[in-house]
């Protein structure tokens, strides 16, 4: 990065943060601080919901996913439009009618105080643990590639987001997310255009090459449970996960209940329902085009440059140089085969085209085998290295091939994504701690100004927790997976609390509370005794909680509490 890149990066990040602080200065009442005075339009809400979900990892790793596995990952988002329709039609009107600050207030109204506290506690535990990851994950990649100090990257980016989130509250989060998303989209579209311009092949040939290497295989209708991405797992699993995340996670609920009206909130959600699949498709296609680009240009054997250099300097130098030469030779051969393939296609010679394609695929298989050997050697020299270097593909392309200024814009886009999702998380953690615990349990009768001050302190506290967690994250092995496991262990039960609240009126507070505890205990027991994919615990926790609640309620007799539809603000 040169000075121009730093001007673009620092100017855009600090400028947006200052704008957010300036626009929201002087907010004193709780509604304005936690819900932006409910004057936010649908476009801002829609972008805010999108920005909260899309972290920096989305924009750094997803192109790498496209590079490695093609478009199949887009199927993971197939359940999301259906979930958002359900949330807009059922969840959202209820949250707005009850005029709640947090989703867990609804549980208190529908069930009782203890169920509300249980839901809020599960959220704080899960989201609080995940908070550090949102800063740590992009910081580790960016600091590795840019040669920055990891601790300073974490502290500076963390403090920036803490400052404007604490000062400006929910409205500052939504406002800054709007401009951060503009930076992100601007950066990604610019990268795509530059990539297309630099491609030695035209778009049709590029798609032909991508298709030939199975990178455009977007749909898989098989019922093979071992396949990671299929239409069915995306539709059903995606529906389930999206309902949990968008419907019950305060970091999302807080975004869309801030709408100026039910209409604005609904349209914001529908904007996401329409745009999310094409957006993910575009990001994955960007990765696929980077793959095609590297069929014509020489790629590195291993994209994590820092880990490679470390291994070269420590014992594995001779072996890695030998592998590099082998890889380069195969690449030259593969390039020629791809040219033969496209020439045969242009000439209409199908037989020669098929033959050259098969030979290119075989060469690709050999180069992947060399990459696997290189990975083994790097891991032997540096055991802490991530085994998958696809996260580094897009940033390598950016640093090696994009012009200065655009590099700064793309790095700014990654930081913007990190800050936007982090801000929403901190905002939600501060709100839930203030509303569901501090005001509800400890100090029910204080002034608005008091709660605003308390909310600021709690947000600041969670910001420090997130920064501290990110700083010490490298002490834990495979932390991202660990946090995902924690999420899956709790998400099922939280979703069940809300599903029962909305759809099973016969179940009351006592039944669902004990059912949730039993289901959570069951999930813990299964987690420590079974060896199944952690994603299954979402389903198991939810199903067990619903079933237990029905059984307990049957034992307790008819529920005399209110149904969701009978609640009033």
């Amino acid at each position, binding site marked *: 990065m040169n000075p121009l890149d730093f001007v673009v990066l620092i100017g855009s990040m600090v400028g947006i943060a200052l704008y957010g602080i300036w626009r929201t200065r002087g907010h004193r009442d709780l509604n304005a601080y936690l819900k932006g005075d409910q004057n936010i339009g649908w476009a801002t809400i829609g972008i805010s919901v999108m920005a909260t979900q899309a972290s920096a990892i989305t924009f750094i790793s997803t192109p790498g996913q496209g590079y490695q596995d093609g478009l199949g990952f887009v199927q993971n988002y197939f359940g999301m439009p259906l979930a958002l329709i359900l949330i807009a039609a059922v969840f959202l009107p209820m949250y707005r009618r009850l005029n709640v600050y947090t989703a867990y207030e609804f549980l208190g109204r529908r069930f009782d*105080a203890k169920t509300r506290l249980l839901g809020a506690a599960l959220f704080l535990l899960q989201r609080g643990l995940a908070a550090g990851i949102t800063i740590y994950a992009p910081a580790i990649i960016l600091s590795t590639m840019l040669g920055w100090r990891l601790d300073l990257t974490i502290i500076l980016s963390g403090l920036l987001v803490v400052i404007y989130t604490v000062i400006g509250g929910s409205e500052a989060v939504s406002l800054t997310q709007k401009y951060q998303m503009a930076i992100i989209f601007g950066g990604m579209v610019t990268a795509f255009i530059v990539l297309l311009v630099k491609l030695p092949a035209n778009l049709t040939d590029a*798609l032909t090459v991508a298709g030939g290497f199975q990178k455009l*295989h977007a749909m898989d209708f098989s019922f093979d449970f071992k396949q990671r991405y299929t239409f069915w797992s995306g539709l059903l699993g995606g529906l389930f996960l999206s309902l949990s995340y968008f419907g019950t996670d305060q970091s999302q609920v807080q975004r869309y209940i801030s709408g100026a009206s*039910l209409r604005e909130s609904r349209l914001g959600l529908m904007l996401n329902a329409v745009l999310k699949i094409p957006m993910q498709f575009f990001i994955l296609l960007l990765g696929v085009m980077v793959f095609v680009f590297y069929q014509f240009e020489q790629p590195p054997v291993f994209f994590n440059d820092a880990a490679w250099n470390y291994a070269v300097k420590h014992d594995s130098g001779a072996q890695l140089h030998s592998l590099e030469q082998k890889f380069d030779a195969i690449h030259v051969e593969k390039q020629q085969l791809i040219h033969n393939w496209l020439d045969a296609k242009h000439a209409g010679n199908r037989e020669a085209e098929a033959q050259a394609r098969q030979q290119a695929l075989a060469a690709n298989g050999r180069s992947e085998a060399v990459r696997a050997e290189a990975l083994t050697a790097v891991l032997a020299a540096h055991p802490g290295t991530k085994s998958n270097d696809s996260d580094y593909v897009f940033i390598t392309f950016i640093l090696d091939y994009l012009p200065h200024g655009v590099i700064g814009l793309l790095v700014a886009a990654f930081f913007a994504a990190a800050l936007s999702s982090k801000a929403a998380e901190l905002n939600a953690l501060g709100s839930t701690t203030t509303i569901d615990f501090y005001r*509800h349990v400890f100090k029910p009768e204080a002034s608005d100004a008091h709660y605003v001050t308390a909310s600021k302190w709690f947000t600041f506290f969670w910001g420090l927790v997130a920064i501290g967690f990110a700083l010490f994250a490298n002490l834990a092995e495979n932390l991202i997976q660990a946090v995902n496991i924690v999420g899956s262990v709790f998400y099922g039960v939280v979703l069940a609390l809300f599903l029962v609240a909305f759809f099973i009126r016969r179940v*009351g507070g006592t039944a669902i509370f004990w059912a949730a505890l039993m289901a959570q205990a069951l999930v813990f027991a299964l987690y420590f005794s079974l060896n199944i994919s952690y994603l299954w615990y979402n389903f198991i926790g939810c199903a067990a909680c619903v079933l237990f609640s029905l059984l307990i309620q049957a034992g307790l007799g008819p529920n005399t509490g209110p149904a969701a539809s009978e609640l*009033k603000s």
Partner: protein
Amino acid sequence: MKSPPDQPVPAPQGGARHSVRADGWPKENGAQETDAPYPTNLDELTGLPGFGTWRGVYVFVFGSFILWVALLFVLTRIFS
């Protein structure tokens, strides 16, 4: 022992019954029939050209999802 709800929940009034459908959910577009405090008549209108009701908006969103699935299917078939 059952904990009380967070705030007293008034028993459903006669008027409140007008705001819910037979299946117990708030009416989508029955603005004149609702007495819930937050929705106004404008809230219930979509305000979008060509979409009088939210049901139409949801059908459009679902249709766009189906369209994307179809396009991705075609892309897979053409280039695989």
